[in-house]
């Protein structure tokens, strides 16, 4: 046997060799003994090998030419840079598969490697059989072997051998890489980009457009942030030219973002609570800040602040003062059916939106996501969605409808609507503004959702014309709120018993299921009612949103339980809920006296054309 002495080369994948022959590997290990052995073994696998003993050098090489390598193998414990750090950097910058290598086989360490994005973790001493199958990671990463590769007998032998070895290794891999490698083996070809070049060619860079991200978040919400695995997300997204690896890395970033947001949110929550939730200015700021954070964190979507924002803030401030319809009732355990209903809604929505939690959190506006009907909301709620927010309300009925049955999917809806599908309920959007306005105030009363409500309002403002009207009617609202509350009792008994009952159960932080179900029914209901005229909505939504609001807060609380809840999102959820509830309530029809008041309150005046209408969210 001769050891091939190939000069490690830049560019070009092994000339005319068939993959995995000539796969370009960069091996990084500060231990010269291991490096030498590794190099030797890799050469025996007929790979192109470049070695370096320093992580810094490796990075330099990688950065010089991103197409230089197909795969990186790196030690974990290195003096100049932590192997995990290198792993992250390579994953982020070059999106190359990285295999970790170490004598350290502790579960914790292996886990760390996987969570940092390693596509495999090998234990020293590495055996030749293991190295023979590492090429699979390259394939998975959005590349495609040359069509003629499989014809070569030798190649087949190697592949077969690799597969066998891979099967054995996959046992260990799947244990460690359940998210990444477990069942994706066969998907690589399907998911790989249409790239006629050899697999060693660079992968087309996936740009996470708004639409794409919307789908991604929708999928994540649908699955539940804890259960969202790249493969399933990918399946749900149903987008071509995206591999699981793309989704995985995007998911990683998303999770980091959410974590940051939740930390922000919990910080803000504490502040809001400390302030008694009565600080509209603060709340307003929070929502905006959160949004900005989101944008910054994600680095893709950048809101262009406009005067409308400030308007919305003011508006929100005003809105905050009016009594929280439902919230008050609920909080003080007043027998307000309305508030209960709102609570339910809110809870449900919160569950929906926050349930998978991250969706809401990440874009603090994401209550829209949870909402099913509030198209405009949806657009506003997500930071991502905000970008296209300027697109006017478009019918979103179809997307809303499909999600009606699924709480998690509600977020998807908002995204889809966000993506530019026309929301089906322009009118509803308007009315929902009012509702949302109402809701935020309630939320703030709770002292939790101040920021949320702010966000909500802002969200609403985005498409919601009635911001201005709302402003003017804030006084009305205040009084109305009082009236409402007084009437709530009477109303409650007659009009919202159902909602109330539903709400009662879920009105806890943790009870999401009930609220979900309630919400689902409401959603379904509202779906049909979405197309109703505005007046109807107004009438019903007055009662419903309050309940939703309360519920929403509860739901919001649920999401907050980890201290990670984004108040904004909760507020958004509430808004969404209110919207939804409004619709469903509309269906049922509330009694009259309250209706009149509500109608007045929530007359959709589109004077300002929505606070955010002028706000341009740009994709950065």
């Amino acid at each position: 046997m001769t050891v091939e002495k190939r000069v490690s080369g830049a560019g070009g994948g092994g000339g005319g060799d068939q993959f995995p022959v000539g796969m370009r590997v960069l091996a990084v290990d500060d231990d010269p003994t291991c490096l030498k052995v590794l190099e030797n073994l890799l050469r025996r696998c007929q790979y192109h090998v470049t070695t370096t003993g320093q992580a810094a050098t490796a990075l330099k090489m990688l950065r010089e030419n991103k197409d230089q390598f197909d795969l990186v193998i790196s030690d974990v414990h290195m003096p100049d840079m932590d192997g995990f750090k290198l792993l992250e950097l390579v994953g982020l910058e070059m999106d190359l598969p990285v295999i970790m290598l170490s004598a350290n086989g502790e579960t914790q360490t292996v886990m760390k490697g996987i969570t940092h994005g390693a596509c495999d973790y090998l234990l020293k001493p590495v055996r030749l059989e293991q190295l023979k199958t590492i090429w699979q990671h390259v394939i998975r990463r959005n590349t495609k072997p040359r069509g003629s590769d499989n014809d070569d007998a030798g190649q087949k032998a190697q592949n077969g051998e690799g597969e066998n070895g891979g099967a054995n290794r996959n046992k260990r891999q799947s244990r460690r890489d359940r998210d990444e490698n477990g069942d994706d083996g066969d998907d690589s070809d399907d998911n790989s980009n249409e790239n006629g070049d050899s697999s060693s060619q660079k992968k087309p860079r996936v740009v996470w457009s708004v639409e794409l991200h919307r789908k991604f978040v929708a999928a994540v919400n649908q699955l539940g942030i804890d259960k969202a695995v790249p493969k399933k997300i990918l399946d749900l997204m149903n987008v071509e030219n995206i591999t699981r690896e793309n989704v995985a890395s995007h998911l990683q970033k998303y999770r980091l973002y959410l974590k940051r947001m939740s930390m922000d949110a919990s910080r803000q929550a504490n502040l809001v609570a400390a302030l008694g939730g009565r600080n509209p200015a603060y709340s307003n700021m929070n929502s905006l800040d959160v949004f900005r954070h989101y944008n910054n964190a994600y680095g893709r979507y950048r809101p262009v602040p406009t005067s409308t924002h400030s308007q919305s803030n003011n508006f929100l401030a005003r809105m905050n003062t009016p009594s929280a319809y439902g919230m008050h009732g609920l909080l003080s355990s007043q027998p307000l059916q309305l508030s209960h209903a709102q609570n339910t809604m809110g809870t449900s929505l919160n569950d929906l939106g926050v349930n998978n939690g991250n969706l809401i959190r990440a874009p603090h506006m994401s209550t829209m996501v949870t909402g099913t009907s509030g198209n405009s909301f949806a657009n506003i709620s997500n930071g991502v969605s905000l970008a296209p927010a300027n697109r006017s309300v478009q019918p979103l009925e179809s997307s809303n409808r499909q999600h009606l049955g699924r709480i998690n999917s509600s977020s998807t809806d908002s995204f889809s609507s966000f993506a530019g599908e026309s929301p089906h309920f322009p009118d509803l959007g308007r009315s929902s503004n009012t509702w949302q306005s109402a809701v935020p105030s309630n939320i703030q009363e709770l002292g939790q959702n101040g920021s949320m409500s702010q966000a909500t309002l802002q969200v609403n403002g985005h498409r919601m014309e009635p911001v201005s009207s709302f402003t003017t009617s804030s006084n009305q609202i205040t009084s109305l709120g009082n009236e409402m509350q007084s009437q709530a009792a009477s109303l409650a008994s007659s009009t919202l018993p159902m909602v109330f009952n539903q709400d009662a159960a879920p009105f806890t932080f943790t009870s999401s299921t009930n609220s979900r179900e309630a919400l689902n029914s409401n959603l379904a209901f509202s779906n049909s009612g979405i197309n109703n005229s505005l007046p109807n909505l107004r009438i019903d939504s007055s009662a419903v949103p309050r309940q939703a609001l309360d519920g929403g807060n509860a739901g919001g609380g649920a999401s907050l339980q980890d201290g990670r809840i984004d108040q904004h999102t909760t507020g958004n959820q509430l808004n969404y809920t209110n919207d939804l509830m409004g619709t469903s309530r509309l269906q049922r029809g509330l009694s009259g006296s309250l209706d009149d008041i509500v109608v007045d309150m929530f007359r959709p005046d589109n004077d300002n054309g929505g606070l955010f209408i002028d706000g341009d969210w740009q994709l950065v």
Partner: protein
Amino acid sequence: MEAKMQLNTLMANMFATGLLDDQFRQLQILHEGSSPDFITEIITLFCMEGEGIINDLAKLLNKPFVDFNKVDTLLYRLQGSSATVGAQRVKDTCIQFHKFCQDNTRYGCLDTLDVVRNDFYDLRSKFQIMVQLEQQVWTFYRKH
């Protein structure tokens, strides 16, 4: 030839006493028929690096305040290279060493360091003999 016989005896002994394990055998198999340069090279690298690591470990452990994380990291280095070369006994001692590290017991670490040192130097001297014998055998077979 005598060198070959001695080499075989030495190898058998090293495997039997647990100084070397299957990994070393694998490396040998991979390079059967080719010059012993590769094996010689990695053995030499291992010996050089290993000595340096053990000295560094001693330094770290003799500080007034021991940074056990550093010790642990360095230890993985030694463990990794000994595992790669097939130096079983050294590797196993490293594993024991890690436990003391995690318990942050300096004296346990120091004691284990002594064991590692002994194992290492024992292995190293045998490796040196092996390399010489290998060279002799190879030279002999190349000539004939």
